[in-house]
């Protein structure tokens, strides 16, 4: 065990869960199951990026759907018009989101008031959505951007050429699972690192952190940039997975509501929370779809119920997941 890095030893349940999830394609090749779980993992990565800003750094933003959408559109458009492989363009999307994230952060650095932060980030995301739906020549607006190329086939030693088209659900599942594992490993390492501890100290008390010589500006800027980068990267993966984008589906407020529900239900400020929330919500939403499309209603009700009765979320129900996580101050 000593050989394993600390972040891996810290949450054995999470990593066994992630490993089990990776075995799913060995058990079933059912396209529908793999499709639903792939989407759930995309939402889990997206919610994790938001969780880093909100749950760990206490930056209560409501505009992460903009980073997701920027990543998705930048990657899709540069792959379509630039003729580049999505393996390359997804990093364009991530970097574009990170740059925009840093720019948005600048005016927010001076503000410590929570409602102002919430309003400005939401307004910024709406500006991006309006831009996207009005620039019809570029994005085709609400008609939807179709014809996005999937990830190009990859030559894997031992397996030959592996393609990731709409028919190859199993390989796409493994691709997205790898993104999930990489993101969670990175976040798990980050939140336990010195930087991560400083970020959590800022969440717990900006004044205390500042008085100990922490540069609030630097660490807030760092957190939001990293968080936006991750959201943009997963947005790009989403674009090359679903192959159609509309401003509503990739940038809309509904996306933010879904992400909020996922994070709160799973447990805000925990590493495993977004993944648990996403699996529970996405799978049960598929079940609900049989009973009419009231997914949003379910998300709304869940958000209200969770903040009222279980503000720590599923991840910290001790019965299910053992000892409570150390990030106890996250709800603040």
């Amino acid at each position, binding site marked *: 065990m000593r050989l394993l890095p600390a972040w891996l030893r810290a949450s054995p349940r999470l990593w066994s869960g992630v490993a089990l999830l990776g075995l799913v394609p060995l058990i079933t090749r059912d396209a529908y199951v793999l499709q639903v779980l792939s989407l759930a993992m995309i939402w889990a990565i997206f919610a994790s990026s938001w969780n880093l800003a909100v749950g760990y750094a206490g930056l209560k933003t409501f505009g992460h759907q903009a980073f997701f959408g920027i990543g998705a559109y930048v990657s899709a458009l540069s792959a379509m018009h630039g003729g580049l492989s999505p393996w390359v363009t997804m990093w364009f999307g991530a970097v574009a989101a990170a740059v925009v994230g840093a720019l948005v952060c600048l*005016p927010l650095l001076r503000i410590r*008031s929570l*409602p102002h932060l919430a309003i400005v980030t*939401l307004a910024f995301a709406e500006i991006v959505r309006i831009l996207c739906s009005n620039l019809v020549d570029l994005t085709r607006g609400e008609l939807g951007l179709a014809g996005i190329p999937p990830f190009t086939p990859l030559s894997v030693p031992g397996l030959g050429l592996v393609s990731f088209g709409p028919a190859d659900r199993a390989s796409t599942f493994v691709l997205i699972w790898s993104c999930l594992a990489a993101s969670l490993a990175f976040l798990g390492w980050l939140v336990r690192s010195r930087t991560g501890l400083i970020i959590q100290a800022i969440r717990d008390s900006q004044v205390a952190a500042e008085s100990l010589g922490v540069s609030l500006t630097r660490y807030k800027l760092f957190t939001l940039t990293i968080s936006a980068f991750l959201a943009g990267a997963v947005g790009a993966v989403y674009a090359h997975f679903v192959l159609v984008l509309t401003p509503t589906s990739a940038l809309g407020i509904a996306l933010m509501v879904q992400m909020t529900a996922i994070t709160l239900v799973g447990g805000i400020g925990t590493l495993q929370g977004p993944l648990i929330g996403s699996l529970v919500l996405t799978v049960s939403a598929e079940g609900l779809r049989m009973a009419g499309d009231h997914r949003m209603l379910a998300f*709304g009700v869940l958000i*209200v119920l969770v903040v009222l009765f279980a503000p720590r979320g599923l991840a910290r129900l001790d019965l299910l997941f053992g000892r409570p996580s150390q990030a106890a101050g996250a709800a603040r």
Partner: protein
Amino acid sequence: MMTPMFLWEQVLNGLIAGSMYALMATGLSLIWGTMRVLNFAHGEFFMLGAFFALTAFELLELPLAPAIAVALLGVFLAAVLVHRVTVAPLMRQRGWDFSTIAATLGVSIVLQDIALMTWGERFQSLPYFVEGIVHVAGVRLPAQRVLILLAVIIVVAGLVTLLRFTRFGMAIRAVASDPEAASACGINTPAIHAATFGIAAMLAALAGIILAPIIAINPWMGVPPILKAFVVVVLGGLGSLPGAVIGGYLLGIIEALGVAAFSSEWREAVALTVLIIVIWLRPQGLFGQRIREA
């Protein structure tokens, strides 16, 4: 064509749109000022007001004035219920500044879906309250739009009178400035919070009702107004009533001129850009106090 006459017409239109923003923002600011809660469900009270009035008018076949009264009362009760079930219990918990935002966001989604199930997604409309055309300083305006302008001025004046000169209004202001001291003086703080929430929701509902003849009534009609109201409260200073009113009219005019300069699909973007600029240059807004630590 940016002739002076055209500009003047745009300014008048801006004032009319702005009066609706002022009404929405006043309610939002009242709730923030009294209980430090940012109400994400405020737009849905705007929507409920319009639907309640429509139902009272068409289904119950009430005359217009009683229909409006019934709708306002209905929204008041709905808002008190929302406050009682979500905001009030959360305010007794830790971390309520964020949890109330999340909860009201959830409530807004729930109310949209309830409206969708109850009234469907068909766009509907109320008849004009008044017919005819009025000439205002050389510009021809439908009487309904002038009515909106007048109604908002009267309501805001009434609200100011209520807050300034009645015992109830003094109790609201006492709770706003120090809830604990107000409780110690025998004011029932939870009841004042509930009533304030209800009154603020009625202001939003009134905006929805008087706009109902002009815009389409649908379950999602509350989303653009609350975004505008957010812009206005930041512009005017969160918690400041004069800020909400003046900010509302100001935003209405800026938007109208922006639409004249670009085109109408950029209306929302103009408003939201104003917000970003205000946050850059003067985060506390025009009339705001220094911004509190979150």
